[in-house]
């Protein structure tokens, strides 16, 4: 029997990193929870994979909020988010983890945190409208079902594009558990697919058909056939965990995807505001002569 104590220690480490406002480290430690969960017996993996999933989400959100605007309300966001994390991870040590409760907490957390990184103008104007999120999601799922052949072309970005739209709508209007589950499934499908797209791409731009057919299409079919009331949570969660494990296994095989963080790459080195000002002044002066 594999000892799950190291995973409880991972969780303690994540909480410690959040406590110090070190969201970047918390993010890495969340990845670590999921990686370590892979080593457990299959029957024990699920709660820890979900704890990692939740921690990674919190860390990513807080990093995004911390980088938004001039004076992000990061302390308020953190104070609002962390009790939910505690609520999710506490049952892990007592062995009372429950999937239904997990998703209920995740929904409450999402409702509380989604607006923090939004622009002030968005904050003032948009109101909660979960039915609209459902409509948008259904449209996008139908679109994916129609266009799924594009997944054989390594240049496509359909999963990223769908997530982009879904999360934009979710941030403005909120989402119910059904849509949150779909976003979770698509997120980890995209992470797994990103490896396949890169590793199994052929010189003509296509991707190894066999890989896409066996590792991606069954998940695409599952997600696009989501019933109106959503899948039973245990079934959807099992799929999500399968995708997380696949993603972690790809990480073992190929490590970090190159340029997986283009936002940082794009930012690169930034000149201090003062220097920018001086350059602008000098250029304006020279050109006005």
């Amino acid at each position, binding site marked *: 029997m594999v000892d799950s104590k190291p995973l409880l220690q991972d969780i303690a480490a994540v909480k410690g990193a959040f406590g110090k406002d070190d969201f970047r480290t918390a993010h890495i430690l969340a990845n670590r929870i*999921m990686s370590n969960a892979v080593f457990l017996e299959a029957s024990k993996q699920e709660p820890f994979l979900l704890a990692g999933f939740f921690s990674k989400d919190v860390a990513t959100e807080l990093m995004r909020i911390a980088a938004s605007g001039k004076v992000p309300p990061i302390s308020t966001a953190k104070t609002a988010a962390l009790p939910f994390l505690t609520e999710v991870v506490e049952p892990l040590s007592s062995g009372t983890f429950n999937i239904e409760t997990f998703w209920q907490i995740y929904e409450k957390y999402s409702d509380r945190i989604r607006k923090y990184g939004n622009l002030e103008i968005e904050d003032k104007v948009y109101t909660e409208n979960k039915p609209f999120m459902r409509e948008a999601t259904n449209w996008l799922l139908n679109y994916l079902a129609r266009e799924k052949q594009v997944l054989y072309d390594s240049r496509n970005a359909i999963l990223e594009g769908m997530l982009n739209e879904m999360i934009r709508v979710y941030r403005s209007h909120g989402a119910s558990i059904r849509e949150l589950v779909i976003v979770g499934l698509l997120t980890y499908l995209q992470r797994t697919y990103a490896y396949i797209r890169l590793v199994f*791409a052929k*010189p003509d731009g296509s991707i190894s058909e066999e890989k896409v057919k066996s590792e991606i299409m069954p998940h695409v079919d599952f997600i696009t056939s989501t019933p109106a009331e959503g899948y039973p949570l245990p079934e959807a969660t099992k799929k999500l965990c399968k995708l997380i494990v696949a993603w972690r296994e790809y990480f073992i095989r190929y490590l*970090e995807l190159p340029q997986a963080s*283009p936002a940082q790459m794009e930012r690169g080195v930034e000149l201090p505001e003062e220097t920018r000002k001086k350059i602008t002044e000098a250029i304006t002066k020279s050109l006005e002569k």
Partner: protein
Amino acid sequence: MSSATPTKSEELERIPRHDPKSTPERVAASIVRYVEKALTEAYLSVTPPSPAAPVSAKLQALRLKRLPISRRNQTRKRMETHDKLLGDLYRMHYSLDGHAVSGSDITPKRSPSTNSFIPSWPIQDGVPYQTWPSTIPTVDSLETRPAGLKLPYSSPASSPKTTRVLSFEYDDRWSTRLRDAGFDELAKALEQSAREFAEKSQTFWGFTLVEESDPEIPSWKRNVLRISIDTLDFDEKIRLWDEIDKQIRERLAMAANDYPDLRQDVKQFSESLFLKIDL
């Protein structure tokens, strides 16, 4: 033969000839972007030297012990500065390379040309990827493959901003309140106005919002924003106290206008809010 090298201002004057419609601001913005990009590329093209191997580091430490105290301290200081610089270089490389998205290891990896345990990326059916990703301009790579897409839903943030606010905390009661809807707009407005004020100042700040009961009438609760500032000048503290109090109340009044549903809550909160500065 060409004439002498043109001066900076001659080069600048030539730019509008290529695009006569561009404004000086636009030219300046392009040049700033170009400089930033060139600096990033230059930075990434530098390969930081490998840190000393454990054995030679140990030998160095033993040798250090034999030196007279004054020289020992001097050498140790120099070595520490060198190590710090090396650490910073690796961290910078690491962050510009866009790592830590899926990674579970906090230790920065070596660059590929040193003692890297990261294989040359990727192994792709025998077709090598164009170049090491850190040298690929993001914009160009977007045209060919989506690996460099900016994903607003998941893109990790840049390094934390430098800030004058060392801490902003809530006591347990406020933490519980923030878990439930209704108080976040208030708390956000409070935190943002405090941070805005602090960022414009020349000193460092710490804030804690607590709920206090009156010692004589326990049912009378008030919210106290405890403030500590890194300045010793008493008069300056009083001046900052006055100004921040004014700014926070103005901001809360604005929030009341922006969110009519919260008007009553904001009013009550403003009335029960006291700012207390560490003198």
